């Protein structure tokens, strides 16, 4: 049974670029305290298992296990229906986006268009 405080979400950032990973962490930590990161899908599964995030920002192109691979193993629709998955990618390939939605992603954001403020706004809107 997942326990999540309504106004204090647990957020997981999955991003393989170190600079971006840190940037997103810094931005979200200004407002939220339960923020975790992973650098690929495999790590993300472990961290998600440990911390039960309510919101996952998921990059698609990553080494070891990519975003789609993560979704296939994590199975949000069947196993984690309360989790909100935001696909956060720089590759706007329609096929990938469609597949992500199929697997349970709820939103898609192009990283190159997201400002620090907009990132916070997304979390705010979801909680």
């Amino acid at each position, binding site marked *: 049974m997942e326990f999540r405080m309504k106004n204090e979400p647990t957020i997981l950032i999955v991003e393989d670029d170190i*600079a*971006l990973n840190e*940037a997103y962490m*810094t931005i979200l930590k200004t407002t939220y305290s339960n923020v975790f990161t992973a650098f690929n899908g495999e790590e993300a599964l472990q961290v998600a298992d440990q911390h039960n995030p309510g919101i996952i920002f998921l990059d698609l192109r990553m080494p070891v296990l990519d975003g789609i691979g993560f979704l296939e193993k994590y199975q949000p629709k069947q196993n984690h229906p309360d989790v909100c998955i935001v696909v956060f990618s720089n590759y706007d390939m329609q096929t990938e986006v469609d597949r992500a939605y199929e697997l349970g992603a709820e939103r898609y954001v192009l*990283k190159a268009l997201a400002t*620090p403020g907009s990132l916070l706004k997304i979390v705010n809107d979801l909680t």
Partner: protein
Amino acid sequence: MSMNKPTVQNSLSSLQARHDETLVELELYKLLVDNVQDYAIFFMDTGGYIRTWNKGAQKNKGYTAKEIVGKHFSKFYPQSDIDNRKPDRELELARRNGRVEDEGWRLRKDGSSFWANVVITSLYDTDGTLIGYAKVTRDLTQRKAQEDELRKTNMLLKKQQHDLRLLNASKDEFISLASHQLRTPATGVKQYVGMLIEGFTGELQPGQQGLLEKAYESNERQLRIISDLLKVAQVDAGKIKPLKTMTNIHELIASIINEQHDSFSKRHQTISYIKPTNTIEARVDCNLIRMVIENIINNASKYSHENKAVAVRLSETGDAVCIEVKDQGVGIMPTDIPRLFEKFSRIDNDLSSHVGGSGLGLYWAKKIVDLHNGTIEMSSVPDAGTTFSIILPK
């Protein structure tokens, strides 16, 4: 006028006259055939033995009349043809069909071969008996050589075309890959500079905000160029497939113009829109066409000085819609017009150094309009303004 009485004298002289006429005709024919140099023309008897020989035949095959008359015509065939009974089969076909035509290798006296076009015609006398064959041969070696050359060149060109296509595809892939990779660090800069500008580290000192905003804007420009490169690589690779739906074009334009108000007022420019009186719809991919119209309107604003106006007009004909964007901008020189829709073409004018652009927008816009089977037309007067018209079939 007295009629000539039929006398023996008269019959004899008319016979003589006809005889002389015939002789003259025969002489003429002999002269004709003997002297033709471009064709070997000779007579073979029913067995295939050569009975006459002309200059063309001598030139063609090298034998003199003395050397060849009385010999069998199979002498001109390569051994492989003789082994296959080709000469006999040719005569058979000539007898059966009246004539036979063939192209193939034939042998000269010196053993060399030439590519020949050969026609063998059966000849009959007045009571229908076969008396022999007329053979006409033309040396086509030169023509064959030219044809072979053409065929080789053709194959080479096809291969080059294929290689170029592969090269083009790998170019598109490279641009795509490089652009995606460039996006990541540029996105990183956007976050860090963005954090400073948005006050994540507290208030900035007076000079800092301005500098950071310039850095941010430069980086945004970089991201736009990367985005343009990706769009162009996609459309060049044929990966764009418009999803056409019936769209209310008026609503589309109205929505675009609505979004443009802010950037227009920043430049103290106005944008006006002449609405149609009736509903105008067309089957278009609204996302793509939206971007095309935005591109044209952005250009109209960018390439006009402040305090100028842009006018947008939507109209229709029986089977097409026309979206016209008219500006009072710097205009385009006639000499620059051919390059307008080319990739990476940026024209030097009063404002081009201020305008940030990748030189890809119009190239992409034209490709999208092409995919809709439409056209983009334009006319311009330097220093007065430019009008772009996007015409799309309904």
